[in-house]
């Protein structure tokens, strides 16, 4: 039967060439988009390494020098760090608040970030790359607020020593520095510095956003003089004050909550002027990715609807034109289902003919390095999944398009159909 079908397809190459060209272009684009969507979905579903549910960022500001309550610098007895810590304590007093932490350009979905050079000292350092890594500056409560745990899933807080200048590294960095060995208890140093910094815990891998993969990173835990240095350098109002609430709140609830504790939200010249949920901050960060995905899905829908129209139009006219042939088939004993199946196979065969050029196209793209493999390696699994998925999608659309013309053809009484012969 297949031979027969291909013969028919070849015989009708005039009309088929249009639909074939369309199928070919659409398959190429569809394959490419399906691949990108697969990579996006795969990345999206990896564990993030933290949890932002019920967390909010409080925005800090400094009082205007003419505002009521402004404390003149010469009258101030406390440092900016004292003010910041007191503000955190006052917020922690509220029943609704579970925990508060301060970070510098380091909260989840933060648009700013810091990088630092660092290298391992003890142990075998041969072949291990020192380099510049993403550093997150956080107060210890960060690990509670965002539920960042160690590799085994245990809380990091008890592992943090009270001594200053300790670091937590991510599992990716541990692997980079120490290979299969454990990084906990080892020491790091800044290149050219004598100071040894102990690694007190190893966190899970952390991803910057839902559409990025994790990268090696480390945490500087801000306590004591380390915190003071940071606050003095960046100023207290630049801190990201992050809170975890015990219950979910809408932005309106949150505004009302802040209104209810507003007298506790000012310490000297430092005050909280607003709040943003990390859910919203996350959305701001990933919206470009989401927009691109949605545009891709819309384009795919556009193409599939077109294929549907194209198939239905071409096959409808063709059934009218081939009534004789169909009548003959019925006359020699083809059942209705048989006719239906025959036409579907014809459509699918038309689609299958695009497979070879498509594979050439894909191989070409791979050899030209046009298919990104940084987030998901180019495995046979990926190529096969994408190819099968895009062919299933197209095949489904083609069968849907053929359904109406085929039904008409099959319902043709054989005698009438034969008259055309």
């Amino acid at each position, binding site marked *: 039967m297949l031979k027969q079908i291909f013969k028919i397809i070849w015989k009708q190459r005039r009309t088929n060439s249009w639909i074939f060209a369309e199928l070919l272009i659409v398959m190429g684009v569809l394959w490419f988009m399906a691949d990108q969507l697969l990579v996006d979905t795969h990345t999206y579903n990896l564990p993030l390494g933290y949890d932002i549910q019920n967390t909010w960022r409080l925005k800090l500001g400094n009082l*205007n020098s003419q505002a009521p309550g402004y404390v003149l610098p010469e009258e101030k007895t406390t440092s900016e760090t004292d003010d910041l810590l007191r503000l955190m304590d006052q917020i922690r007093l509220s029943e609704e608040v579970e925990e508060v932490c301060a970070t510098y350009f380091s909260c989840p979905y933060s648009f700013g970030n810091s990088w630092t050079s660092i290298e391992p000292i003890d142990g075998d350092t041969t072949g291990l790359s020192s380099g510049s890594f993403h550093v997150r500056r956080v107060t210890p409560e960060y690990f509670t607020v965002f539920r960042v745990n160690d590799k085994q899933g245990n809380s990091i807080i008890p592992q943090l020593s009270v001594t200053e200048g300790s670091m937590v590294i991510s599992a990716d960095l541990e692997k980079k520095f120490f290979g299969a060995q454990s990084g906990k208890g080892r020491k790091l140093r800044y290149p050219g510095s004598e100071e040894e910094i102990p690694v007190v815990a190893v966190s899970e891998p952390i991803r910057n956003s839902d559409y990025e993969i994790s990268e090696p990173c480390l945490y500087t835990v801000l306590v004591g003089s380390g915190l003071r240095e940071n606050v003095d350098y960046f100023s207290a109002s630049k801190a990201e004050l992050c809170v975890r609430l015990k219950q979910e709140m809408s932005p309106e609830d949150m505004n009302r909550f802040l209104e209810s504790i507003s007298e506790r939200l000012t310490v000297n010249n430092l005050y909280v002027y*607003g709040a943003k949920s990390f859910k919203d901050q996350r959305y701001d960060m990933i919206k470009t990715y989401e927009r691109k995905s949605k545009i891709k899905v819309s384009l795919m829908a556009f193409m599939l609807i077109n294929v549907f129209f194209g198939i239905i139009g071409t096959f409808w006219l063709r059934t009218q034109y081939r009534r004789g042939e169909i009548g003959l088939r019925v006359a020699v004993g083809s059942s209705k289902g048989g006719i239906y199946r025959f036409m579907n196979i014809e459509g699918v065969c038309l689609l299958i003919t695009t497979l070879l050029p498509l594979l050439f196209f894909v191989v070409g793209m791979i050899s030209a390095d046009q298919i990104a493999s940084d987030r998901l390696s180019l495995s046979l699994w990926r190529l096969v999944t994408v190819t099968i998925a895009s062919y299933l999608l197209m095949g489904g659309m083609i069968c849907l398009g053929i359904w109406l013309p085929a039904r008409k053809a099959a319902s043709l009484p054989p005698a009438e159909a034969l008259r055309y012969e």
Partner: protein
Amino acid sequence: MLKESPLVSTISILGTALSIAAIMVVILIYQIQLAAYSPEIRRERMLYINATQSQAKDSNGMRNRGSMSTEVVKECFYALETPEAVTAIASDKRPISLPGKRLYKEYSIKSTDHYFWKVFDFHFLKGRAFSEADFQSGIRTAVINDRLAYELFETTDVVGQTVSLDFMHYTICGVVKEVSNAATDAYADIWLPYTTDENLLPVRHSEGIPGEFNVCILAKKKGDFEAIRNELERRKAQYNANKIEYEVGFLEGTLTRMDIAMGSTGFKRVKPSEFLTETGALLLFLLLVPALNLSGVAQSSVQRRRSEMGVRKAFGGTNRKLLFQILCENLVITCIGGIIGFAFSFLLLLACRSFLLPNEPMLTMDMLLQPATLLIALLFVLLMNISSAFFPAFRISRQPVVDSLKEIE
């Protein structure tokens, strides 16, 4: 003739409609960036500066990129003589409170000058804009939009009332009708004279060049752009000559509305050729895929009418006449599809604006319906017609009479 094969006609019409709708959505997205509508009604006469760099004069490479300070605004821009008006704008988001009550809901704020009201065209419901005197002496006055007025006071009759921003009190001097946030330069909930905010004063580092301001220049006429650019160069050179360690630069310089619509920013200019390649490819794709479709359908339907063509030819119809006849017949279908698609594009844009347009702007009829829109739509309908029907029609008109009559493919 459309009735002869209703299904095929429907499909051709729907296919065209889909294509035209998709193409028009792409066009409308650029139109919203480009066309003039209230309050940015003079966009074709405007120049924009939205990137500033302060760079150390010696070679240590210290530089800061962002926006400019009020000092640069004054020395380089207010001093310009060629333009009709120049306005400096700093944008922020902050909570607006009432004097006795701290509130935390954030609103969009623009700190600007009195020239702002000359450059943009707002509809005042109550009161007036803050005056030059208010601006010069840093009087805390504010213009708010009707939505903010309703949210705070439940009425728009609020001239003379007080709002509080960061514990500072501002007297409302005017209420304007809310504008679409697609007008990014003019849009805000509250407008203040920037002289009232000490946080906007020049910074201490980099000799006071970096700041929060971007500038919109309104030229007297479009032809003045070159003269304005030259004068700005002179002002800049003068300003830099007075600086010791740092100098100001505007990176990609003054942008026209067209540059912005093509995706340029002051930091990175998108060349027209890049824009045309990218958008052209997309439009071609949106046109080509349905055109292939329709070609297939057209091919099948002309084929059925081969004998008709043969008869026509036998009675003296020339190739050109037949070609023209098929194209005209097809044009009826493309036109109907075009009209449906055109209407559909508005719905599509409205439904998908959350991911098609940045900031999910409010859409108004005057930004969507411009005379050029109709012309562009018509152009694409014609393109669609030619690309879908030309080849099948050309081929059938060339077929020898005998073959046509014998129905040989």
